[in-house]
């Protein structure tokens, strides 16, 4: 009984203090949005160098508040933390690592849970609900250079010092 307590205590202690040490050496994050923006600087004013795909694994290089400097393949740049998760994202159900993985706290299975299939079932049961304009809204995407032009044209000048 005493042994068990010591065992649990040591385990928890190492988990609490050991992990931060470990992650300082090498950590990976996953892109959790459809298209993650990789920027040239840690700010929304930084130009977008590339768009990373859902599930892409990036290596964490530097941590600067909400902005993370990351590397993937030959690319290096800054991403906002809202685009990233510490979980590994598996894009296909039934993939080998999903079977062997113990828990969803380390893995996120793309497309699981509330997904297109559930939406289709819901639609089927609620035929009065119309998705036409929800789909049309998706087409109204604005590109980063259009945003920059919009700010410039309207003489909206972001003060450098408060840029997140």
């Amino acid at each position: 009984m005493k042994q068990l307590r010591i065992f649990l205590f040591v385990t928890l202690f190492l988990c609490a203090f050991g992990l931060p040490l470990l992650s300082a050496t090498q950590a990976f994050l996953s892109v959790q949005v459809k298209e993650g923006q990789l920027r040239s600087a840690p700010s929304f004013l930084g130009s977008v160098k590339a768009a990373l795909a859902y599930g892409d694994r990036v290596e964490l290089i530097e941590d600067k508040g909400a902005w993370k400097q990351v590397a993937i393949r030959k690319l290096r740049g800054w991403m906002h933390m809202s685009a990233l998760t510490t979980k590994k994202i598996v894009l296909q159900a039934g993939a080998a690592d999903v079977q062997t993985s113990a828990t969803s706290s380390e893995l996120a299975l793309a497309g699981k849970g509330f997904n297109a299939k559930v939406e289709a079932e819901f639609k089927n049961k609620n035929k009065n609900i119309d998705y036409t304009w929800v789909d049309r809204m998706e087409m109204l995407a604005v590109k980063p250079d259009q945003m920059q032009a919009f700010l410039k044209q309207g003489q909206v000048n972001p003060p450098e010092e408060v840029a997140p």
Partner: protein
Amino acid sequence: MKRDSLILFLLLPASLVIFGCQTMLTVTEKVTTVAEGVGMIDPSYARAIKKSTVAVSKSIEEFTPEQEYYIGRSVAAVILTKYQPYTNQPANQYLNLLGQTLAQASDMPEIFRGYRFLVLNSDEINAFATPGGQIFVTRGLLRFCRNEDAVAAVLAHEIGHIQLKHGIQAIKKARITDALTTIAAESARALAPNEVAMLTETFGGAIMDITTTLINNGYSRSFEYEADNAAQTILRRLGYDPNGLVEMLMVMGKNLKSGETGFAKTHPAPQDRIDEIQQKLGIKYSRVQTPETRQARFTKAVGKI
């Protein structure tokens, strides 16, 4: 035996550090199984450890951005069943240029499929934001805006609700637990048809919880003040005048009739919001000055809406 146990005590927890705690569950399970095998702990204790580790892992689970996106789509569809879209392309394009730019300056610039904005063809004074990033503003509310800075304030307030996950918090707790339990089972295998049906039912319930809150009940006053607060930060980061919100609320205060549906029912009184903004953020009101080009594009797109 005693010495073996001692070595195990030192080695096994150390192995956790090597593998990292993200794999805590797997490792704990293995360690517990080993410990059980060498007679260090009895099987019932072993089971208890395994069980509690699973519980801890699940409690930190939440909806992924992808799932919030699907919740948002259906909330948007319900809203668009009750309200008609205003199909004026320049107005919607302007709203998306402005809104998506504002979202980039928020604390949550990246959501699964990005933010989208649409004007609703309604005289009611109202605005809605879904957890998936769809934001709606009625023509009635846009008529209270005298300049782009005011429109920016309205949109930034809605972005604030998304950033602060207010929509998700409107879902009843029991429903979230139900959903996450079913979803957790799915990570290991495909869902059986009855589980898909269960999940769809929970999904429908969640959509109802959110739309009822958005359309009928409104958020708490504190959520509204929090969204105003977030809006001020977004406006300042981009270089819009924080008084845009105060000015819009002043016009609203003059025009809002009590007993009206929409904002009058679901939001704190405009003057209360102005007081809160001015007291908490120390903003002293002065008239919003916007450059001519900015005013011109505002007038062209939504000035006569």
